[in-house]
């Protein structure tokens, strides 16, 4: 047996121009969450409990796109989703379309442990959350000023329908149709990397 191991991520598609202080901030959050998991594993905790504990911490910190600090829909609301899977017995739980649950991953865990299903979404998931008594927050808890700014940029670009492009500040215009993609080496899914900057 090779002993315990843990890995954590905070999202891919990082904007190559991310300021150094933002990089350091992200690293600090990742390191803090790793230590939470390491301490639990040293104490003999089960894998499924550790992944839930670590993702809860990441959801609570607004630095990454989940829970508080989630990306916003075109209406400026949050629709969060999460899943959890226990390799022992391949049990799993998932939720989508949450707008008030503080820690979506814990509701996914309850779907796995306390419901006959493996996936609940939107109204049904919100109803299940109230039945289970999980902590819920007002929508404003999840919305950060920075993400409202990102959303406005996307809307100003008026290209969101096709390429979800968020104009890089200082770029005069932003092509509004998918057809006129600028051949930018930094692309993700054929889209400018700036679209995913918050990710």
């Amino acid at each position: 047996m090779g002993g315990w191991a843990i890995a954590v991520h905070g999202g891919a598609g990082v904007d190559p121009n991310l300021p150094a202080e933002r990089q350091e901030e992200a690293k600090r959050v990742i390191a803090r969450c790793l230590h939470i998991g390491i301490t639990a594993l040293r104490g003999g905790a089960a894998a499924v409990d550790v992944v839930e504990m670590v993702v809860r911490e990441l959801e609570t910190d607004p630095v990454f796109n989940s829970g508080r600090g989630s990306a916003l829909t075109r209406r400026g609301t949050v629709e969060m989703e999460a899943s959890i899977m226990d390799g022992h017995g391949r049990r799993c739980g998932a939720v989508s379309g949450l707008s008030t649950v503080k820690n979506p991953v814990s509701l996914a865990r309850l779907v796995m442990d306390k419901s006959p299903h493996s996936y609940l979404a939107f109204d049904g998931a919100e109803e299940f959350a109230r039945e289970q008594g999980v902590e819920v927050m007002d929508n404003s808890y999840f919305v950060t000023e920075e993400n409202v700014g990102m959303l406005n940029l996307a809307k100003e670009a008026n290209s969101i329908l096709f390429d979800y492009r968020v104009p890089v500040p200082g770029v005069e215009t932003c092509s509004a149709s998918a057809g006129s993609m600028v051949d930018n080496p930094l692309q993700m899914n054929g889209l400018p990397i700036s679209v995913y900057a918050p990710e």
Partner: protein
Amino acid sequence: TVGCVVVDGNGCCAAATSTGGLMNKLTGRIGDSPLIGCGTYACELCAISCTGEGEAIIRSTLARDVAAVMEYKGLGIQEAVDFAIKSRLDKGQAGLIAVSRHGEVACGFNTTGMFRGSATEDGFMKVGIW
């Protein structure tokens, strides 16, 4: 998107992923994170959590593919991750983290960077972006 994969002292694996999705997405959009086998998967052999362009991850059932090539082709965890990232995403871009029941960690991504960190019982620990 955030995620965590763990193998505990008993060799049991688990994975969890959570996200707000894409900025300015249409309401009602479901991404890869909650779809078991796409953004998240765990079995006796390994555990995987993905991030990036959800639609590509869904089409490639990325997380399950890593486990499948380990199961059926006998690849090691990093080989399986590299195979999935290189040959399953078509033009999509994504990243993933993985652990094996033998206490190994692996990651792969074809984006410019991925916020990530990993640690093992023998004292290894790393936090990185690029």
